[in-house]
């Protein structure tokens, strides 16, 4: 009883572009601003989310026949929280420096709407393999968005990339301030909408809010 009729590649692509978590769906926005003041932090959180998203999709899909629909919400929450705890502990042990800066946001992954939404919408109704690709695609899409935002913010705000400085002179300090995060995401979102309207004849992202 599977409702999916897309190839695995299409599933991947859908997550990466068509339903990109941040720019198209406009959910899970908190980290897109909070941890994108440097490429390193952005990538660390992006990879964590990718891991959690994929594992949650696989787990929920594997258990979909045993989960009673009435209590599915707490069950999904527990599955997500379990994987987040794993990544939280791994980061705390092996990536101390990064963890000190973004630890809170790693723990907050539990409350991400995007992960929950994929478990509910896709994984609970599909077989394991498509669920894996769906989760991976969503994760990659999120990671890409994080890379794009943090690339611009670190480059403009500090004149550095991955902590290596190569632009001399005064950087645009506002970009790494909190305000710069909002501006960067707003401008990038506007840009992607413009591309969509101009070249694909779309109507721009509707977004949740």
């Amino acid at each position, binding site marked *: 009883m599977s409702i999916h009729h897309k190839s695995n590649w299409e599933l991947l692509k859908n997550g990466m572009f068509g339903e990109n978590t941040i720019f198209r769906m406009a959910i899970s926005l908190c980290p897109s601003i*909070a941890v994108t003041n440097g490429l390193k932090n952005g990538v660390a959180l992006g990879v964590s989310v990718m891991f959690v998203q994929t594992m949650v999709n696989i787990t929920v899909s594997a258990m979909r026949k045993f989960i009673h629909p009435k209590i599915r919400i707490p069950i999904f929450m527990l599955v997500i929280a379990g994987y987040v*705890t794993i990544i939280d502990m791994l980061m705390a042990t092996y990536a101390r420096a990064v963890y000190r800066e973004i630890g809170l946001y790693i723990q907050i992954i*539990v409350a991400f709407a995007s992960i929950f939404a994929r478990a509910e919408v896709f994984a609970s109704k599909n077989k394991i393999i498509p669920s894996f690709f769906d989760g991976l695609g969503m994760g990659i899409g999120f990671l890409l968005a994080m890379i794009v935002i943090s690339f611009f913010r670190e480059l403009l705000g500090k004149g550095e990339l991955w902590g290596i400085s190569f632009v001399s002179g005064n950087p645009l300090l506002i970009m790494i301030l*909190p305000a710069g*995060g909002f501006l960067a995401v707003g401008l990038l979102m506007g840009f992607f*909408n413009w591309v969509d309207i101009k070249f694909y004849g779309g109507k*721009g992202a509707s977004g949740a809010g």
Partner: protein
Amino acid sequence: MDFVKLFELVVAASLINNFVFTRFLGLCIFFGVSRKMETAVGMSITFTAVMVVSAALSWVVYEKIMIPLDLTFLKIIIFIGIVAAFVQSADTIMKKVSPALYYKLGVYLALITTNCIILAVPLINAGEKYNFFESLAFGLGSGLGFALALVIMASIRERLEVADVPAPFRGLPISFIIAGLIALAFTGFSGLITL
């Protein structure tokens, strides 16, 4: 009990470390419900109430159950469980006791579980080792700060309805840019109180 410290915590949590504008939490809800003043106010009231109660509940569970039993590594799972259970029961109780209030605010209750602030406050309380009243003050300040942000944003977005915004920026992108400008103003609060 040190009232000055508590007052400072409330001010710090609501203005200086405003969750929306300097910690970037709860953005989904922030952009989701700030379209109309009415929903913004409803959300603010519900949210502040839930915030204070769940800060108190999770403090009790953390200090009295998790630390003695050495279960602190499970704090993410337990806190989200507490919040979800509390919101669910508040929903049920409100429906029975006060249908009128439920009709007005019930819809926001359901939304609250997806708000990251609700999880961040217990986690920060535990991390900073606040005592019971400090946890309450921090929860209250966070709730008030979120309410303030929502009301400011809603009043701007209501005016935005009649503004002529370029097509690609309509809706969310322009809201982000406005939030950026407000955040810039909030930077002015930094250094007001040093804890």
